[in-house]
Structure formats: structure tokens, C-alpha cells
């Protein structure tokens, strides 16, 4: 731990306090943990919609003639393939292939990209990108200050955005998409009270939903407009606690839990984001930071793999608890892994967890246990995601 520093607050801080939120430090920021009940907020996102302040997320804008080539070099994904107004989940890795952060890259205007990083890693990611920019004609800009990021997530999210006062389409800035046609993992420009905002159909909850970047001075106004428009749809403000249980049900990794500097994307089951096949226009392989280590890692069997666990009892597993073989009665057997995230699943009604285990015990249906403070609680390996939203 470094020296104590004051946590930053977002442009929506006073709104959270007025709504009675419990605030918690998170990634250097003071963020809403919950407003009323974790479970009620979680269920609202699954059933209707939730409103989140995500202004703590890092946002680095990349412009310049080499922007796409630079991102192909700096990140593991094939970013030059991302069409205009598209978004892509990617990662920034070290030379040894370990994950420095997981990111979403938005191609938000022709040749203009936003790299959205986790709050706790935003400074590190900016520093890494600056180092990797040597020799590329690009400009990097930290655009997080001066902006807020508000998400509406849940099956009613699209209706709520359509009903939001002063949130309007403008063909001049939309990027060629009508709101009605905005696809999952795509983005568009819109106007809110005349100001340009960026609307991405992305999220971290396993539901349909939108993330909106708005100038800080319009943040409170947009927050209130969304809450007002959402009232008939039972929209509720939702905190980090619900966000964490939602992403866990959806099987999405959280940096610091499933991903860290001791992990490569392959162990995390996210090898698909590593584009060893990316080539330039002339067909030559594109070198990128971490490529050699990742190619070697892909070719060798991993020492541990990320699996989903379903609790057979009622007791949840928590991060860092040992995964063990079933022993005699409630005696834990030999340790075969570690839980990275765990919680009671509000939607499914039983405990769920993500864990790294040795490959021998990673097959679906393998009966394991988690050492819950000295007692072996039975868990079984299940597919991830735990929850998939109903498709229309």
C-alpha cells in the first residue's frame, strides 16, 4: 500500500450522497457501493434497469495518422480491424505476456480511438501507452478528467434512453448510425442539451445496456434526466456491489481478481483476444508487445485454468479461499486451486465462484470443495457464464 491519499470524487458525488448511497474507496475513487440493497439493485438490472456512475474509468484518447497501427502494436488485439464506431474488448500485456489491464477500445470517430481502462490501472496504462508510442505518429490524451461516464444497464435500457429528455440524435455526429440500429459493441455520437456525448452499447452486467460519456458539467443534468425517464421503467441507481455480482454471474473477469500481472490471457480463458494472426496490409505479421511470450504460452499447456464453480450448499466462497479436493466429511482435502471471485448468485439462488484450478480437475462436472474458513463446502465445476440473458 502506498501513502494514504484522498480518494477522488466524480462529478456525480453529490447526487450519490443525496440518494443516500454508502460510499466506498475503489481504485483511488470514492464510489457508491450501494444505494439501498445490493440484491434489489442487482435484480433491477436483470429485470428492468440500473443506473451506474462509472466516471472513475480511465479514458485515453488516441489520435494521429498512426493511431490504428500504434494500437495494433501496443495491445494484443487486432485494433486496425475495428470498423468506425465499433468497440472491441482487448488487453494490454507486458513483454512476458502477463496482463497489465483489460480494456475496451472504441473507434469513436474516423481514426480516433478511446482506450477505456480500469480506474486503478489508468495511470499505468497511460504510461505504458506513452512508452510504446515511440516511433508512431500519434497523440495520446487523458480525457477522463472533464468527463463523466454514466451507464444504463438492463432489458429496459433502450426504452429509457429513447425517453430521455434532451438526448437527441444528430446525423452530423452520429457516425452513420441511428439509435434504433446501434448494435452491441458499437457506439455513436448523440447530443444531450446540445452537447456532444458518446453512447456505446456496451456494459459489464450481462444485460443489454449503454454507456454514455458526457462532459462533466452536464453529468448531473444527464443523471437526473435518465432517472426521470427511467422512473416508469423502474430504473434504480445501482452501486459497485451490484455491478460486481452482475459481472460475476455473466462470467466477466475483474482485473485484480481473475486477471493480474501473474496471469496471461490464455489461463483466463481469454486467449481469443490475443491476435497472433494480425498482419499488415502486405501480409507481414504485426509485431506487438508480448507477442513472443504469448505465442509460446499458447503452444504449451497452462499450469492452471479458470473455471466456474457452483456451490451445492448455501455457503458462498470468497476470493482467495483455497479450492480443495473433497475429503472425509467436512475436512478439506488437498489444495488444487484458488477462488478469484465468489458470491451468492442473486439470480440463480446458489453460490457461484470463479477459480484457478489445476487442469486435471477443470473438467465440467468435477466435484470439488472450497475451504470456507476451515470447512469444506461442496462445489462442482460448471460452464461459464453462469447466467445468460434471455434472447428475444
Amino acid at each position: 500500500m502506498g501513502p494514504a491519499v484522498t480518494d477522488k470524487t466524480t462529478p456525480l458525488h453529490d447526487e450519490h450522497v443525496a440518494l443516500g448511497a454508502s460510499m466506498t474507496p475503489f481504485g483511488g475513487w470514492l464510489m457508491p457501493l450501494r444505494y439501498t440493497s445490493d440484491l434489489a439493485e442487482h435484480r433491477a438490472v436483470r429485470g428492468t434497469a440500473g443506473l451506474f456512475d462509472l466516471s472513475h474509468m480511465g479514458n485515453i484518447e488516441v489520435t494521429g495518422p498512426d493511431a490504428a497501427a500504434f494500437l495494433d502494436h501496443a495491445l494484443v488485439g487486432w485494433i486496425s480491424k475495428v470498423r468506425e464506431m465499433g468497440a472491441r474488448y482487448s488487453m494490454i500485456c507486458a513483454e512476458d505476456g502477463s496482463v497489465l489491464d483489460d480494456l475496451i477500445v472504441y473507434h469513436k470517430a474516423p481514426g480516433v480511438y478511446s482506450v477505456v481502462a480500469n480506474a486503478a490501472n489508468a495511470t499505468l496504462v497511460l504510461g505504458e501507452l506513452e512508452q510504446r508510442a515511440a516511433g508512431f505518429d500519434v497523440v495520446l490524451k487523458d480525457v477522463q478528467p472533464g468527463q463523466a461516464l454514466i451507464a444504463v444497464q438492463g432489458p429496459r435500457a433502450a426504452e429509457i434512453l429513447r425517453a430521455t429528455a434532451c438526448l437527441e440524435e444528430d446525423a452530423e455526429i452520429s457516425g452513420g448510425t441511428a439509435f434504433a440500429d446501434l448494435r452491441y459493441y458499437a457506439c455513436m455520437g448523440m447530443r444531450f442539451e446540445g452537447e456532444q456525448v458518446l453512447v456505446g452499447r456496451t456494459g459489464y452486467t450481462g444485460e443489454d445496456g449503454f454507456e454514455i460519456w458526457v462532459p462533466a458539467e452536464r453529468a448531473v443534468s444527464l443523471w437526473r434526466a435518465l432517472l426521470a425517464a427511467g422512473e416508469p421503467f423502474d430504473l434504480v441507481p445501482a452501486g459497485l456491489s451490484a455491478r460486481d455480482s452482475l459481472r460475476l454471474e455473466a462470467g466477466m473477469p475483474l482485473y485484480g481478481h481473475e486477471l493480474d500481472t501473474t496471469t496471461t490471457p490464455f489461463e483466463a480463458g481469454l486467449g481469443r483476444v490475443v491476435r497472433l494472426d494480425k498482419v499488415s496490409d502486405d501480409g507481414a505479421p504485426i509485431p506487438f508487445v508480448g507477442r513472443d511470450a504469448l505465442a509460446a504460452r499458447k503452444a504449451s499447456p497452462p499450469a492452471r485454468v479458470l473455471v466456474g464453480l457452483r456451490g451445492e450448499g448455501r455457503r458462498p466462497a470468497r476470493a482467495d479461499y483455497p479450492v480443495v479436493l473433497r475429503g472425509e466429511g467436512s475436512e478439506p482435502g488437498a489444495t488444487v486451486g484458488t477462488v478469484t471471485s465468489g458470491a451468492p448468485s442473486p439470480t440463480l439462488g446458489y453460490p457461484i465462484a470463479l477459480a484457478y484450478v489445476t487442469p486435471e480437475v477443470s473438467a465440467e462436472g468435477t466435484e470439488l470443495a472450497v475451504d470456507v474458513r476451515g470447512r469444506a463446502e461442496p462445489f462442482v465445476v460448471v460452464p461459464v457464464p453462469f447466467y445468460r440473458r434471455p434472447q428475444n
Partner: protein
Amino acid sequence: MADFPENLKYTTEHEWLDGSTPAVIGVTDVAAEALGDVVYLELPEVGAQVEAGAVVGEIESTKSVSELYSPVSGTVAEVNTEAVDNPEIVNEDPYGKGWLFKVEVTGTGELLSAAEYAAHTGN
């Protein structure tokens, strides 16, 4: 806002007990609020000997695990199986249906009045 019935005694660990025999014990609404939604309760066994100030169980919420302390010494007379089956009643009604266990009291630890507990929690 926080509510501390005058007829109860409290501990700095956010348990309450009443004056009946056996004494009924639960957690305060300050504890219920701080924990978040309670999802699992581990309570002492009926007949177990408990000591004032000692850990007798666990209260697990969506996000955290907290230890449950006994405010008194004695023998556990009854546990609230309804709360074990439906832990959300601890949040909904911490001084009523969400009680946790009953003890035949042989001795007490340091107990606070409602006013003292309110001062302790800054309410």
C-alpha cells in the same frame, strides 16, 4: 435512520439483547445496514455454552463475512431457524423476526444502554 429501542441492551459489536428469560439476542439495524443483504447465518447449536464477548457464529452478506459475538455467557436455549432459512429477515426486521438466538444467561459482558449505543455509533 438508525433505531435503538429503549428496552434493549447493546454491545459495541452491534448485538442487542432483551431482558427476558431466556434472553433474546440479535444484531442492530446499524449492523444490518453496514453488512448489506444478509445471505447466510451460522448460529450456535442449541445447548452450546457461550461466553460473553466470544465468537459464536458468522453473519455473511452479499459482500462480506462478519463474526457474531455473544453479549452474554450461558447456555443457548433456541436459535431462529426461520432466520437461518430466510436470512433477509435480519435486514427487514432486526429487532423482531430477525432475532438470532436465545441464551439462559449466567453472566454478562459490558452492555450499553440505547443512549450509550447511539453515542457509540455516532447516531
